[in-house]
C-alpha cells in the first residue's frame, strides 16, 4: 500500500462521507422547515414522535420506502424511473466541490510499517480550479430531470409544470451567471478555496490611489458586491423552485406540477434533489459572499493557529480546521434558515410577473453590476498607477 492507494482511499471515504451527510441532512431539514414554519404561524408542527418530534425524521424516511412502487399506464417507463435519479445527481456533484474548512497539512508519518510523505488534507470532495464554472454548469443540468419527469408522466399538468420549471430555470440562469461576473472581476479567480483565502483578511480596497484597510470588518465578498449578492440570492431562490418562485408546483393551477404522477420513494428523491439544491445555494452564498469558513477578526486560520499552538501544540492544525468547519456550518445553517423564513413570509408570483422579473429586472441589473464593477476597478487602477498606459 503506497501513497497513491492511500490517497484514493482517503478521497473515496471523503466523497462517501460528503454524500451521506448531504443525504441525511435532507430529512432533518424537512423537519426543521416544518417546525420553523409552524412556529412562525403560531402552530406547533411535528412534535409527537420522539423528543421535539425529532423521530419524525426516521418516520419520513421509512414510510415512503414502504409505499407501493407504481407507474401509471400512460407513462414512459424508462424515463419515468430515470428522472428521480437525475434529480439528485447535479446538486450532489456541486456539493462535492465546496470547501468546508481550511486544508489540513499532515506531516510525514508511519502507518502499518509504511512511510507516508507530508499530505494536505482538503475538506472538500475534489479541489477544482474552475469551481465556479463547474458549479454553474452542473447545477443547471437539473432542468433535464424536471423536463424528463414531466414529459414521461403522460399527464397534461405534469407536462405544463415541467415546461414552466424549465423556462423559469433557464431564465434565472442568465441573471445568475451574469451576477457572478462582477464577483470574478473582484476576486480574479474561479477557485472556491482561493476565494475564501482572499476573504479571510480585513476589508481592503484602494480608494483614489491610496490603500484603505478597515481593521474591524472582514473582507467578505458582500462588501465588494452587495448588488451581485442580492441578485445571486434571488436567482438561487428561483433556480431551486422555492417560494416565492414555486410556480412549477402551483397546486391551484397544476395539481402538483412535474411530479404529479410520482409517489413513494421516487417522489422523495425529487424532494432530496430540491433540498440538496437549497443546501448547495446556501453553501455557495457563504463561499462567494460571506467569507466561506472564515470570520476575519477572530476565526481565521492564522489567529486560531496561534491560539491553539500555544496550548495544544501538535493538535493545533486539526483544532483550527475543526473550528473553521463549525464556523462554516453556522453560516450555512443561518442561510438555510433564511430560505425557510422566506417561505413563511412571501406569497407566490404570477407566471408572467416571474418571467418579467427574471428578464427585465434581474438581467439588466446584473449587467449593470458587471459593467460598473469593471469600470470602478479600472478607475481605481488608474489612480493607483497614475496613467492609463503601462
Amino acid at each position, binding site marked *: 500500500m503506497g501513497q497513491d492507494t492511500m490517497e484514493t482511499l482517503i*478521497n*473515496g471515504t*471523503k*466523497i462517501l462521507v*460528503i*454524500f451521506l451527510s448531504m443525504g441525511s441532512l435532507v430529512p432533518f431539514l424537512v423537519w426543521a422547515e416544518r417546525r420553523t414554519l409552524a412556529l412562525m404561524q403560531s402552530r406547533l408542527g411535528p412534535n409527537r414522535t420522539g423528543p421535539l418530534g425529532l423521530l419524525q425524521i426516521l418516520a419520513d424516511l421509512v414510510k*415512503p*420506502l*414502504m*409505499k*407501493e*412502487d*407504481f407507474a*401509471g399506464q*400512460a407513462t414512459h417507463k424508462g424515463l419515468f424511473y430515470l428522472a*428521480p*435519479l437525475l434529480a*439528485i*445527481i447535479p446538486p450532489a*456533484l456541486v456539493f*462535492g466541490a465546496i470547501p468546508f474548512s481550511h486544508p489540513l497539512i499532515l506531516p510525514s508519518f508511519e502507518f502499518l510499517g509504511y512511510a507516508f510523505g507530508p499530505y494536505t488534507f482538503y475538506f472538500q470532495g*475534489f479541489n477544482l480550479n474552475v469551481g465556479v464554472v463547474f458549479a454553474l454548469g452542473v447545477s443547471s443540468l437539473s432542468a433535464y430531470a424536471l423536463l424528463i419527469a414531466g414529459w414521461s408522466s*403522460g*399527464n*397534461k*399538468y*405534469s407536462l405544463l409544470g415541467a*415546461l414552466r420549471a424549465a*423556462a423559469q430555470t*433557464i431564465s434565472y*440562469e*442568465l441573471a445568475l451567471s*451574469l451576477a457572478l*461576473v462582477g464577483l470574478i472581476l473582484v476576486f*480574479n*479567480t*474561479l477557485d472556491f478555496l482561493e476565494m475564501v483565502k482572499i476573504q479571510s483578511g480585513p476589508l481592503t480596497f484602494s480608494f483614489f490611489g491610496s490603500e484603505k484597510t478597515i481593521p474591524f470588518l472582514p473582507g467578505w465578498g458582500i462588501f465588494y458586491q452587495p448588488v451581485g449578492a442580492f441578485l445571486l440570492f434571488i436567482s438561487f431562490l428561483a433556480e431551486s423552485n422555492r417560494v416565492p418562485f414555486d410556480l412549477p408546483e402551483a397546486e391551484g393551477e397544476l*395539481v402538483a406540477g412535474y411530479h*404529479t*404522477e410520482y409517489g413513494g*420513494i421516487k417522489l*422523495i*428523491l425529487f424532494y432530496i434533489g430540491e433540498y440538496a439544491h437549497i443546501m448547495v445555494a446556501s453553501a455557495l452564498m457563504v463561499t462567494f459572499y460571506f467569507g466561506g469558513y472564515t470570520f476575519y477578526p477572530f476565526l481565521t486560520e492564522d489567529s486560531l493557529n496561534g491560539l491553539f499552538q500555544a496550548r495544544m501544540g501538535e493538535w493545533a492544525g486539526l483544532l483550527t480546521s475543526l473550528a473553521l468547519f463549525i464556523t462554516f456550518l453556522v453560516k450555512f445553517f443561518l442561510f438555510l434558515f433564511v430560505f425557510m423564513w422566506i417561505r413563511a413570509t412571501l406569497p407566490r408570483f404570477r407566471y*408572467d410577473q416571474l*418571467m*418579467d422579473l427574471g*428578464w427585465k429586472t434581474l438581467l439588466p441589473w446584473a*449587467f449593470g453590476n*458587471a*459593467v460598473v464593477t*469593471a469600470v470602478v*476597478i*479600472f478607475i481605481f*487602477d*488608474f489612480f493607483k*498607477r497614475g*496613467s*492609463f*498606459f*503601462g
Partner: protein
Amino acid sequence: MAPILFLFFIAAGFAAFLIGISIKFAPKDRPTDIKASSYECGLAPDPPPSRHIPVKFYRTAILFIIFDIEIIFMYPFALAYRDFLAQGQGLYILLVMGVFLAFFLLGLWWEIASKALKWT
C-alpha cells in the same frame, strides 16, 4: 476527475438502491383501470397530452441560448481583466469589451421592445 465520477456513481447508485428497495419490499396491489390512468383531478385523461407546446416556451429557450453564450464569453474577460490592467492595456480591453457589451445591451433592448418576452 476520478472523485467526480465516483460521486456521480454514488449518487446514482443511492437513488437506484432506494427505488430497488421500494420495488422489492413494498406491497403490491393489482392495478385497476382507474388507478393506472393519469391523475388529472378526476377528469378523464382523454385526449393524451398534446405534443404541441406554446410558442413562448420556444422563444424563451432560443433567447436563453443566445444570451447564455454571450454571458459565457464574459467569463474569460473577467478572469483576464487584471492581467490587462497590469500590462497597461486597461483602456483597450475596456473598449473592446464595451463593443461586445453594447451588442448585448442592444439585443436585450430589442428583445424587450419587440415584445418577444410578453407572456400573455
